[in-house]
């Protein structure tokens, strides 16, 4: 009877005892060896400790980039993050397809050289689909390698020489600058949120595994998770507002100058530099100078002190 259930490794399968579940009864070789080992017995393989020598990249970043922890099955929080990430990824893929034209990309230039113009478009689409599939696999398998590939593909697809003009992949999208920038902003926010949500999946999976193995104890789990959920709503809103100010600087500066001089304002609004990416660069400098000033005057601390006093 025992022999009937023995596997090729000598392990007994006990599927018939555990409602069809395959439970291997073979112990690890170390346990197997216990009590039987003689001085002439070879060293069991699992008795030799594995020594991990960090790679150059790991040394540079101070640890492994990809997490190798074996996670337990996802809990409710992780599962909801997975569903959320998958939804964000779908929308992001669609937005990427909409806002990234094939013209100006390296593969477009290559396909033109080869005389197969449709090949560039197909390759462009394949990169987006690759990012989508890699992302979905990474999300549900909680595989950081697949997620990194997905991030890379979704960023690579935007790499093109654009010549300062905002172009979209679909022609029927709005022509007005403000709508174009809003669409771009939406795309950027979804890309950042996709990156955050997927890293959240790994982070909460690690936390959940640590909780379930008793390594970490969490008091009031719901409060901590609800804080994360709240931040997922507030942070993108704030970030997109700040980024909006930066991107719309070519409208804000002429409007401000217009209070004093209409002609100069008109000239500024028609300035090529201000409407190009260099205008965005100027906006970035201005907005982030204000932010830096806030930090320099210890504004976070003063807000904190005020909150403490008023609490």
């Amino acid at each position, binding site marked *: 009877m025992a022999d009937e259930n023995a596997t090729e490794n000598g392990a007994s399968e006990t599927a018939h005892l555990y409602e069809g579940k395959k439970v291997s009864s073979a112990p690890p070789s170390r346990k197997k060896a216990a009590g039987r080992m003689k*001085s*002439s017995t070879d*060293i069991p393989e699992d*008795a030799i400790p594995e020594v991990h020598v960090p790679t150059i990249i790991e040394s540079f*970043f*101070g*640890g492994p*980039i990809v997490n190798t922890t074996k996670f337990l099955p996802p809990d409710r929080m992780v599962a909801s993050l997975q569903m959320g990430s998958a939804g964000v990824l779908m929308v992001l893929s669609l937005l990427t397809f909409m*806002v990234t034209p094939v013209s100006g990309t390296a593969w477009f230039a290559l396909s033109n050289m080869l005389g197969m113009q449709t090949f560039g478009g197909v390759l462009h689409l394949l990169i987006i689909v690759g990012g989508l599939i890699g992302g979905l696999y990474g999300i549900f398998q909680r595989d950081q390698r697949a997620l990194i590939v997905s991030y890379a593909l979704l*960023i690579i697809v*935007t*790499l*093109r*020489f*654009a010549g*300062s003009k*905002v172009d979209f992949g679909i022609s029927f999208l709005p022509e007005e600058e403000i709508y174009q*920038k809003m669409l*771009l*902003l939406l*795309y*950027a926010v979804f890309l*950042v949120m996709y990156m*955050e949500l997927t*890293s*959240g999946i790994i982070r909460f999976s690690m*936390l959940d595994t*640590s909780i379930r193995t*008793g390594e970490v*104890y*969490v008091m*009031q789990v719901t409060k*901590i998770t609800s*804080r994360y959920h*709240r*931040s*997922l709503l507030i*942070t993108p809103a*704030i*970030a997109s507002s*700040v*980024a909006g100010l*930066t*991107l719309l600087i070519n409208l804000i500066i002429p409007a401000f100058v217009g209070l004093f001089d209409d002609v100069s304002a008109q000239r500024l609004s028609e300035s090529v530099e201000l409407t190009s*990416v260099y205008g*965005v*660069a100027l906006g*970035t400098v201005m907005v*982030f100078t204000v*932010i830096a000033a806030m*930090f*320099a005057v*210890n504004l*976070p*601390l003063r*807000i*904190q002190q005020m*909150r*403490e006093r008023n*609490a």
Partner: protein
Amino acid sequence: MAWSRKSAMFAALAIAMYLLGLVLRNSQLVTVAVVLLSFLTWAAFRTSHADVASSGRRVDDADADEGIQLHSISALRRISSARIFEDGEIDVTLRIQNRSNLSKVLEVRDRVPEVMRIKKGANYVLMELGPQRETEISYTIETPLRGFYTVGPVCIRVQDAFGLFHNEREIHLYDDFLVFPKMEDIKDAMIKSRVPKIFTGAVNIRNPGEGSNFYNLREYIPGDPMKKVNWNATARSAGKMMVNEYERDAVSDIILIVDSRKISETGPVSRNSLVYSTRAAASLSQYFLARRDSVGLVTYGDEIVSVDRDTGKKQLYVLLTKLAGAMAKGNTPLKVVTDRIMPHINRGSPVIIMSPLEDDSTVVSAVRDLRSRNFDVTVLSPSSLEFEFDARRLDRTGYEVLKTERDILLSELRGLGANVMDWEPDMLLNTALAGARGF
């Protein structure tokens, strides 16, 4: 405020995308970079709220030289025992108090020595602590190895919801505890002094005197107390009055010598010569002190540390404390130790040496000197070879050669009249002692 690896990667990605976007004049890349930078900035702003200024110090605590502060959090720890034996358990209770008017999400880690195992509870807790509230964390640690240990400091971390930035503070709260070597119950050490002290003790020494065990019959001498007269023997001895003589009960000076040279730690952390020697010394100390003997201890490694002979329970704790702190260091020869201590101990006193007897060419001459001065020498030698061989760090041929050398050395010591036992790892101390005395 410290950056996490994630925030560093996000920042690097944002800057790269931003610069690439400017070079390629690509609005998509620039937009993503700006959103990413805004995201990071907001997270940094929120984390800075957590009590810390951008300079890393609160304005009102700027003179405190602690770096990043989380001053409204305080901690108090209580441990169930400051002295414990190996394989014991210590209950730790950590009370965390939030004196701020705002609630905080904290990660609290109470640092536990690496060799300790958390048996129950967790020393790493993630919690939200309300304003003016306090909470208690409890956990139990197992103490597998002797030594001096410290629990603490308490590390407190506040981080933003996305894990991008964090502030950390170490509350310098430390609790020391001592793990004594495990003791084995010894029934009989079979070691008696040939030069008992004048005080009465619990050991009968096969000399007539005041005691409880019968020794001999002799003829009555004027002055003998009448209670000692054995009337039955007197009746049988044709008119001679016979009295009972008793064995003299006395105390002895026992000297324990523990080898704590670097080589004595050869083998796995929990199974090496020093671990066995300290456990044996602790067990013997307890046994001899319970017998009202006077016990002294010498440990030698990089220096010679000695505890003067004394009796009583207090002496047991003094000896256990010394044994708990014995570190494997240095390579002082045994001869130096014996030369140093011999003038201070009574000739004929039992000397018990616990040593792997390796890497010391003076062992034979040291034992010879002790024997020539009539000391009762017992050598308990936990074999490092066995530990190494069991741990698979020594091959068969090497083991055989070294074992032969060791056997020759042990035979030589036996030839000098010392009681020697090659103490194998799985042998109980009682058995080893009996073996050393030839039983």
